């Protein structure tokens, strides 16, 4: 079997793996939150209730495939599709192990940032096309939130790029053989973590969908499979952000030799997925103005400070050695 064939098979594995992981995550999240809050969560179907995923899928598939007659129909269908495609394409540059990756381009990190910035359109166009007041307000709100946090997201990663001298994600992983960036880039990690949650608008930063103010925000008019695609995009975003945190700050697939790199990569990513879910259980939702102030007034200065400090330290250490 040639290398290309192997990579093609791996690409399909990633495709199915990411989607099924996102599907299982819907059940896993409810179970984990249940345990956290001293209740059961879905535990009826199959072992530990895992077949709940299948039941939900069947239910969503048999829902009325409704496109509001008052909406911009094509844009309405296009919006959730764009979100899923953009998020899925983000996985193309993630290095899962030394040999397992779909493509390793020299602008991999910028490709990831580009894909997340294209995801904004899904929210904006979804809100605009729905022609519903809640959807419009929710879309605008979430777009303002996403673009704000996009700025710090890009900047917070620049410390890593500085130390590596490359945008290639595989090169970034290999540069961490001597030490993970989570120590030297602790400020960058902090900002990226928060920006990542805000970018995939997960709780506690799910203000676009704040039920008590905007019913469901930009996807108020969405139902059935198209709603499920927005949710799928959100869970894919969660997994993608966890993958990127692992890759950029926690040494990616690096780990002790007695287990393959893919194992270490999955373990670390799984840890961050659990972290994001438990964060949801632990922290209440802030007000919208608080969220925006946090971004511009705290996180942006921190990122700039991180760049200045990292630059000075790295250059003087290099001069000393």
């Amino acid at each position, binding site marked *: 079997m040639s*290398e*290309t064939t192997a*990579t*093609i098979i791996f*690409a*399909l594995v990633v*495709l199915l793996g990411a*989607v099924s992981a996102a599907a299982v995550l819907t059940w896993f999240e409810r179970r984990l939150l249940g345990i956290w809050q001293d209740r059961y969560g879905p535990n009826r179907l199959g072992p530990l209730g895992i077949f709940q995923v299948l039941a939900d899928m069947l239910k*969503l*598939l*048999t*829902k*009325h*495939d409704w496109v*509001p*007659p008052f909406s911009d129909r094509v844009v309405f*269908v296009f919006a959730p*599709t764009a979100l*899923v*495609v953009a998020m*899925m394409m983000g996985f*193309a540059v993630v290095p899962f192990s030394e040999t397992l990756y*779909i*493509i390793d381009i020299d602008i991999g990190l910028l490709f990831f940032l580009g894909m997340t910035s294209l995801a904004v359109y899904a929210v904006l166009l979804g809100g605009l096309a729905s*022609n*519903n007041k*809640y*959807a*419009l*307000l929710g879309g*605008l709100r979430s777009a*303002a939130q996403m*673009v704000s946090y*996009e*700025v710090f997201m890009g*900047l917070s990663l*620049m410390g890593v*790029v*500085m*130390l590596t*001298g*490359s945008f290639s994600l595989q090169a970034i992983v290999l540069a961490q053989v001597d030490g993970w960036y989570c120590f030297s880039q602790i400020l960058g990690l902090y900002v990226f973590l928060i920006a990542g949650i805000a970018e995939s608008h997960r709780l506690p930063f799910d203000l676009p969908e704040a039920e008590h103010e905007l*019913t469901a925000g930009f996807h*108020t*008019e969405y139902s*059935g*499979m*198209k709603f*499920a*695609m927005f949710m799928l995009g959100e869970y894919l975003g969660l997994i993608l952000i966890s993958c990127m945190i692992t890759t950029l700050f926690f040494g990616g697939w690096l780990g002790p030799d007695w287990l393959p790199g893919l194992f270490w990569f999955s373990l670390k990513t799984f840890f961050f997925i659990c972290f994001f879910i438990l964060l949801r259980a632990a922290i209440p939702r802030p007000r919208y103005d608080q969220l925006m*102030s946090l971004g*511009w007034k705290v996180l*942006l*200065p921190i990122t700039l400070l991180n*760049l*200045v400090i990292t*630059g000075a330290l*790295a*250059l003087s250490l*290099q001069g000393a050695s």
Partner: protein
Amino acid sequence: MTGSTTAELIPFIVYFGGVILLVLTMLGLSFVLGQRRTNKATNTPYESGVVAVGTSQIRLSVEFYLIAIIFVIFDLETVFIFAWAIAFFELGWQGYFAILVFIAMLGVALVYAWRCGTLEWGVKTRVGLEAKDN
């Protein structure tokens, strides 16, 4: 060279095709399997159970425009920082002081936006105006 790189690329194309196929399958399946029903209120916009009043063509507050402008400006500035970060060690101290000036300008922009109250949401109070009004 090109042969080997094209070979590297094929998985990417296959992956992209797979993603498109997956999305189309999801939409197609739900279109075929979905039930169809038309009740009295099926085709009205959702407004918490109340009959919709007016259209969704509402005036939006100017904060969103300002945030979008600030975002574009800061995004452009980050691009310069991207260019610096990638060649960080090659540029050395000279590049470091250059970017320090650049970041200082960025800081000035941030402070300006902050002082003007662009970053505040809710009721707008521009610095220096409160005294006159109250």
